[in-house]
Every structure is written in C-alpha cells, then in structure tokens.
C-alpha cells in the first residue's frame, strides 16, 4: 500500500519529460557558466565601485538561475501538490542530512552568504588566517587568491564558526598601514609631518579619505603607523611598498635612527 503511494508521487516517466529535464539542467549550467565568464571578464575591465557591483551580481544571478531550474524541473518529475512534496523533501532531507551533512551545511551557508553578504567578489577577506581577494563565490565554497597568487577554497560552513575579516566590505576603500620602528630620541612632530607627506605624495593615494599617522611609544623605541587608502584595493601592496621606501629615504635624510631590537633567545631557551 505504502509502496503504491510513494510511486504515485512521481509522474509516469516518458522520454519527453526526461529530455525536458535534461534540457533545463543543461541550459541552466550553460547560462551560469556564461554569466560567470562574461561578468568576470567585464568587471576586470572596470575599476572601483562598478567593478565590485558587477562581481557581486554573479552569485545572486546563479542562485536565481538554480532556483528557476529547480522550479521548472519539479513539476516534470512529480505532481507538485503539498501531499507529494512533503514526504519527498522529508525523505531527501533525512538522506542528505546523514550522508552529506557538511556538504549540505556548506550549501545552505552559501545561500546565506548570498543574502547576508559577509563577502563579495572583489573583497579582500581573511578567514582562518588566510588573506586574499575573493575571486569566486561558489555554491559550496568561496575561492580566494592570496597575495602569493595561491588559490584557496574555503567552504561556506566556516561562516557558522569562524570570524570573517573583510578589509573593504564591498567598497573600493581599503585601509593600508605602513609601519616604522624608530629610535626614541628624535623630533616626533617632524617625523609625523614627513610620514604624512609621504602618504600625501604617493601616486596611489585615494584623496577622498583622510590620512592618519599614529604614534605609540614602546620600551624599545617609537612605533609609527601611516594609515591611508589606495585608489583601488588591489594596489594595497604597491601602496605600502611605495610609502615604506620613500619614508625610509626621508627618515634617513632627517638623520633618524631606526630602532634595532637584538635577537633574543626564547624564554624556554634561557634556562
């Protein structure tokens, strides 16, 4: 009896339906691939907010396409009534829940990621100590490329447990910090002005956001930090390099001595 009822859920299979389902799956996959390629290609030829906007559209459009394909496929396999859907989805849920718990959790986190947007394509994020640019937000994992040009695939499941550090959060503004460690005996105001001018004269500087120079005295010397923003997030390393090189030259011209901390053995090695 129960067996008869389960079989009643499904529409009697025939070739036409089967071909239609295949066509929908193939079409959806083709469209997803085309959107991913075209949007990424176009975004890479743009800059700033327009680039980030186009990149952020990709996962949303993919989710819409998948849902559309699912809605089109279901009535071709089962009679789409409430009585039919509840047992089928229940059975499917239990089976997947046991067999692919983490996989399904990642898929759900992927849907949450599209809605909540803790990271977008083009953002610079850090998860579990891995820092890089978000290149692709898949259904299961996010692909980031580190500054060393290494691709890292991090499952969306990390959303539930790990803090996500997003350096620019969907905007072109990404703060860069250049650090300088100086001998404590110097004219602090003069050094602060020099470091401010170093940032102000960098060709990578974004003028829209103010520059800050933060000074902190330490037992071994004085720690200076230039906080400034490059025009584009991907310029962060060139920007920090440019500020560091030019600031070192300027500090040397002023006769400033850099702090040198002697290499000490670790505590456990002393005894």
């Amino acid at each position, binding site marked *: 009896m129960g067996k008869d009822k389960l079989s009643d859920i499904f529409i009697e299979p025939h070739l036409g339906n089967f071909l239609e389902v295949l066509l929908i799956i193939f079409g959806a996959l083709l469209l997803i691939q085309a959107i991913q390629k075209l949007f990424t290609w176009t975004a890479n030829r743009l800059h700033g907010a327009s680039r980030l906007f186009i990149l952020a559209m990709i996962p949303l459009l993919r989710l819409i396409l998948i849902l559309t394909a699912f809605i089109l496929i279901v009535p071709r396999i089962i009679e789409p009534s409430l009585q039919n859907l509840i047992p089928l989805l229940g059975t499917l849920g239990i089976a997947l829940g046991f067999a692919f718990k983490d996989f399904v959790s990642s898929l759900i986190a992927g849907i949450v990621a599209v809605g909540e947007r803790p990271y977008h394509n083009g953002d610079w994020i850090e998860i579990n100590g891995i820092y890089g640019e978000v290149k692709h937000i898949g259904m299961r994992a996010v692909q980031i490329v580190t500054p060393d040009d290494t691709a890292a695939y991090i499952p969306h499941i990390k959303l539930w447990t790990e803090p996500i550090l997003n350096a620019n959060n969907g905007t*072109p503004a990404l703060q860069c910090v250049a650090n300088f460690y100086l001998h404590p005996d110097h004219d602090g105001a003069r050094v602060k002005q020099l470091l401010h001018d170093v940032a*102000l*004269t960098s*060709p990578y500087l974004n003028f829209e956001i103010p520059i800050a120079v933060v000074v902190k005295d330490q037992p071994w010397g004085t720690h200076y930090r230039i906080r400034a923003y490059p025009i584009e997030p991907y310029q962060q390393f060139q920007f920090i390099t440019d500020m560091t090189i*030019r600031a070192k030259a300027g500090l040397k011209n002023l006769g400033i001595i850099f702090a040198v901390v002697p290499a000490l053995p670790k505590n456990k090695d002393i005894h």
Partner: protein
Amino acid sequence: MNSQPSEKAEKPEAIALWEYIPISDFECPIVLSADVARQKWRMFKRLFTNTDHSSEQIKSEEALQTFSRARLDELVPEIDWHAAVDALDCALDDWIQNQPNDSPVKFIVGHPFMGNGEILARWTGRHSARLIAKPKQEQILDNDQSWLNHWPDSQTCWVLPNLDKCFLRHAEGLALIRRFLALALNGDLGTGLIGCDSWSWAYLRRVCFIPSSNALTLRAFDGERLSILFSQLADSAHNKQPIFLNAKTGKAVLPDSQEENNGASKDLEQLAMRCQGNAEIARQFWRESLRDEPNKESLEKSTSELTIWVGQFTEGAIIPDANDENIALILHALLIHNGLPVSALAEVLPFSDYQIMDLLLRLTSLGVVGLHHEDWQITPMGYLASRQYLNAQNFLLDDF
C-alpha cells in the same frame, strides 16, 4: 502659441569671447544625452576590440584630401592671447584699484594648453609688474628659502605665472610651496598674481589650504564662442572668410561672416562638449578635420570665395590598453606637474629611469605625450584620452 526658442526673433547680444569668471561659476558646455550615449557606446565597443574604428571614412570624405601644414597654419593659426589679456585686465580692474587687504593675491587657474603662462606674462609687461621665476628643482627639494628671500619689495605687484612648477609630488617637495602660500596669503609678499594649471590646482588644494574665492578662470568655450573664434582665426589670413561646409551634410559649419551671428552649428556644439570648453584642444580637432577637394587649391586661391570641407572630428589619440596602471601613473604625474623632465619623473614615480623612458616612448608612439623643451607633456590631441583613462581608473581629476 508659444514662441519657438530656435527662431531668433530678437538679435542676440554680442557675447564676450574671452571672459574671466570666479572658478566656482565655471560650467562645462552642456553634454547632450545622445552625445553621452554615443561616447559610452564607443567606450563599450573598445572593451571588446583594441582597434580604432574612428578612422572609418564617411562616403563624401573619400574624395577629399587633407591640407598641407602651411595651409592649415593659414586657415587655423595659433590663438593670439591678446584678447585674453584684455579680459584679464577687465576682471582684475577692481582688485588692482582697491588692493583689498583680505585678498592680497589672486589665483588665475588655467585650462590645459590655454596659454595661462603667456597671458600672465603679457599682463605683467602691460602693468610693469615683476615676473617671478620658478624655483629650480633642487631648491624645491631642499626647501631653499633663498627663492623667497629674494622677493621684490611689497610696493610692486608681482606675478608668478606657473605655481605648477613650484612643487614636486614628493615628501620633500611640498615644504617650499607651503611656505610660499602661507606668506603670500598672509600678505607678507605684497600684492601678487599667481597662475596655476587646473590639474596642479586640484592637487594643491588637497595638499595645502588655498581659498578658491580668490581664483579666476576663463569661461568655457561653448559652440557659439568656438564659432566666433574659428571665424576670427580664418579671417586673419583672408580678405574674405572661406566658407566652411560639413562634408557629410553640406551645411555651413561657420557663419558666412562674423556679423551674421546665427548661433553655433551642431558640429561645433558637439566639439565644445567633447573638448569640455577648451578652445585650444577644440582648435586642434578643428585643424584635423579640415579637408580640401583635390587639385582645387590653386584654382580656389585665384577665386574670391574659398570652400573648405569639414570632415568628421577624429577621436584624437587612443590609449588601447585599458588596464595598464603604470601608464595611468605616468599620465597623472605629467598632468599634476604640467609636464616634467625624466629626472623629476624618477623622483615622483615608483619606477626606474629605464621604465619611465620605456613608458614615455610607448605613449609618444600613440601621440599621447611629447617632449617640449626638456619637459615631457601630454599633447592636446592626447589630452581627452588621458583624462578619460584616468577617470576610468578613479584618479584625481581637475575641476574642468
């Protein structure tokens, strides 16, 4: 019913070709949405192809030929800045008479290639003022105060025509100009006139305090002003002004005479918009567009009426690689400093001399930059492409 705006029932008042206005009043010629759409479409097409399709000739242009350089110099000679000096005189009349204590200096912000330095030099001669020479590069980097110590006495009006040459975008290249501006704005240097390029102005306003209320600039050249200017230029070499006809439509591009002021043709309005009201850049595009019928030159010279055909305005220089950050950096450095020698470029850019020369040669082959005396500068035909390139990459632009 309602009166038609296109019908010129009343004779319009004569417009001032050259006029200095407060910088806050500056407005670029209005951009028609159709023209913007056309420009965006061209940019979009360039995303897919690096080739330039602007050289595709329209049918009626196929039979026409370009003029020799000498003939072009006759038809479109260089702009005589004399009238601009008169306009500057007019704008500064009150200030010179009253010399108010709250504004001891006036800034004259020049559009690129619009002869700001020359206009100020001529104004200096006319008013027996003292022309101040720019400091040397070493003086800028060493913050050498002797440049300021040798300032003329405060009784004489002084003119510094190129503030853009008094700084370097370098950590040690700003101290001298900051000191100078502090003294000048405080009135310690007496009454003076300071000329500055629009790009340097945009940068310097972010580096030190400069009140924009003391700044004047030339009014933008709209289609009507361009029409008058080109007519004047053509008139200067001919007893009777040649007839300028659009090669595609056959319609007159310039009025037959300067007295007959029927407003600007659509071609010139579009040119004014594209050039953002910059008369010198528009003049260069105008020169490039003029065409002649083959084997007619000798015949025409003997007749009283000359017909000159105006072809499609070119795109100007094109920078094909839309994503080369190094090109953007060098273009920006050149514009911010109104041209620089290679030695100074090496101070302001994170590249070696070799890389800089390599980039400059690439840009020279594209017609975007050129060597002028010792300074590398953006060319008038490369300016619009450079500005668009920097705009696309979100670099700081001038206000014009």
